[in-house]
């Protein structure tokens, strides 16, 4: 099976007041296409740092990171933006929808930055909204939606650019347990359709429902287990 992404000896050091903080000390793992991974660990374990690197928001100090076969560890800001626009689908803890846009316009945003506006993108984005169960809320603004609904919009948005993988940062952190259940079911059904999903979380409920759990501790991989 081909790889969605591969991480090789990835390290990230921060320099704070002449003191070097080694947030990530050389992490290696593969994520095959169609995998469903949770990255866990206590705070300070390097979770957020790894998330930023996987999300192509930051540059590693050393090591390598491949998306499919392309190395993207040393790209500049502009090139990283292109990679984010084309190949990564983000889902955030606090939904991060743009308040002045409607549901369907929010879903369109990644397409806009991809550069190639297809003429049928509006209907494509409507389909995505219907897929996450919000076909009747297309013209609503984020403030008119519940937390669970907003997260569904965010998931639809992460699918818009047909990414290599979906990167979710504590996607259920702000949700009650019933909604958490719904959202995880949505992720599961997406994974069944072949989507690669990486969730960064500290919730055991999430961990219990994914295929594979990578635990970090002090910037290194503590364990890598398949459920």
């Amino acid at each position, binding site marked *: 099976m081909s790889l969605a992404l591969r991480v090789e000896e990835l390290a990230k050091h921060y320099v704070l007041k002449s003191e070097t903080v080694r947030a990530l000390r050389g992490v290696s793992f593969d994520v095959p296409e169609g995998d469903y991974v949770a990255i866990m660990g206590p705070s300070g374990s390097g979770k957020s740092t790894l998330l*930023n690197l996987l*999300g192509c*928001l*930051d540059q590693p100090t050393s090591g390598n990171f491949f998306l499919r076969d392309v190395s993207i560890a040393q790209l500049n*800001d*502009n090139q990283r*933006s*292109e990679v*984010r*626009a*084309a190949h*990564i689908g*983000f889902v*955030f803890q606090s939904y*991060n*929808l*743009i*308040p*002045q*846009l409607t549901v369907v316009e929010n879903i369109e*945003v*990644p397409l*806009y*930055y*991809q550069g190639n*506006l297809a003429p049928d993108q509006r209907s494509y984005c409507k389909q995505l909204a219907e897929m996450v169960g919000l076909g009747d809320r297309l013209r609503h603004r984020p403030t008119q939606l519940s937390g669970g609904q907003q997260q569904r919009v965010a998931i639809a*948005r992460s699918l818009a*650019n047909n990414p290599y993988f979906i990167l979710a940062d504590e996607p259920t952190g702000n949700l009650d347990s019933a909604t958490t259940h719904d959202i995880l079911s949505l992720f599961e059904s997406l994974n069944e359709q072949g989507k690669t999903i990486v969730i960064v979380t500290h919730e055991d409920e999430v961990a219990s429902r994914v295929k594979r759990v990578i635990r970090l501790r002090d910037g290194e991989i503590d364990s890598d287990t398949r459920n």
Partner: protein
Amino acid sequence: MILKRFFQTLRLGVYSLLLHKLRSGLAVLGILIGITAVIWLVAMGEGVSYQAQQQIKDLGATNIIVRSVRPAQQGSSASSGLFLEYGLLREDFDLIVSNIRRATSDVLEQIVPLREIKKEARRHDLNLDVRVVGCTPEYLDLNHLTIDRGRFLTDSDNNPPENVAVLAAEAAKSLFPLENPINQTIQIDADFYRIVGVTEDRDPTAAIGGSLDSQDYNLDVYIPLATLRARIGDMIFTSRSGSREGEIVQLSQITIGLKDLTYVDAISEIVRKIVLEKHPNKDVKVIVPKELLRQAALLRMMFNVLLILIAGISLVVGGIGIMNIMLATVTERTREIGIRRALGAKRRNVIAQFLVESVVLTGIGGGLGVAFGFLCKPTINFARDLVMEISPETANTLPTTILELQPIIAPWSIIASLLISVGVGLIFGMYPAYRAANMDPIEALRHE
């Protein structure tokens, strides 16, 4: 494709601005006032300079005017000498003619000497203070006068000198309120003159700078120059506050009309040289309308630059307002910037987004400013009428320049205003946009 992207960005910008209507409106107001100021000031400046240029053009750009000026009162010497002798002489006229002919042949269209005197014209029991102008037939064309009835003076009136006169419209109306003046007579001093023609109304010219007094042509009586010399002579007495004063003036003015504008500079040099030689005491001055035109154009340009500088200050103030709003917007929308960056926006996408917003703000301000600019003329007319109505005394103390001012909206000022408003948006939006683009996406996403 690019257009579609642009419209999408534009729509997004308008959306975001509408989220803060009052704030955006106030920012727009700053630009609006600045642009309106530019258009109004330029329109008024153009109006004023148009007035001046029209007056100078009335003198004729191809003309050179040589005029006698009464020297400043030297007090006792004038009264002791009884007669003050000054100004152009008949021999000056011949000298100027021969000098011009010698310098270049065939440049003279006409050269017209004239003598003017204030006199009282009488007819039966009516009398009127008029300006008696002794001139030659060319005077008519030279001053853009037109004949209403009868004819103007002819060469045969001058040689031998005939006692004929042409009346200006107002003079004719005052002296002959009921009947046709043609072939009637009027009396000036002891002599009678037969009326041969009447000229049409002509608007008086206003004074131009310090070089020429205003002229009201409507109370003129035109008689042949030779007749004036024979009947009235060079000497004039005027009674002023009890004491009598006398002047001896041979010619009041010589107007040199040239065939082409290009000769004006050279010929005016020649004339100036003669005048300087013969009249070192400055009792004759040379007025070149073409030079006045050039000066007026220069003055107008300087005036416009000044106005634009003043308006520019208000635009800078408006621009600072825009920058302030945009900085607030950028800070407020840090999270949005983070989201957009995470979803793949490049720095330049973020710059474009915020620049579009600031340009939309200033563009709307500029557009409205132009619209208000067009209100310049009606507003000024309304204000003037209001002043006239409320207090006519105040209105009468206003200079004619203001009373007659018709603002002219210059097309270039509209184009410039729109460009400037867009420019202000770009310049003052640049820093906030860069600030937005250079945020660290990770930090921006974390921003509450």
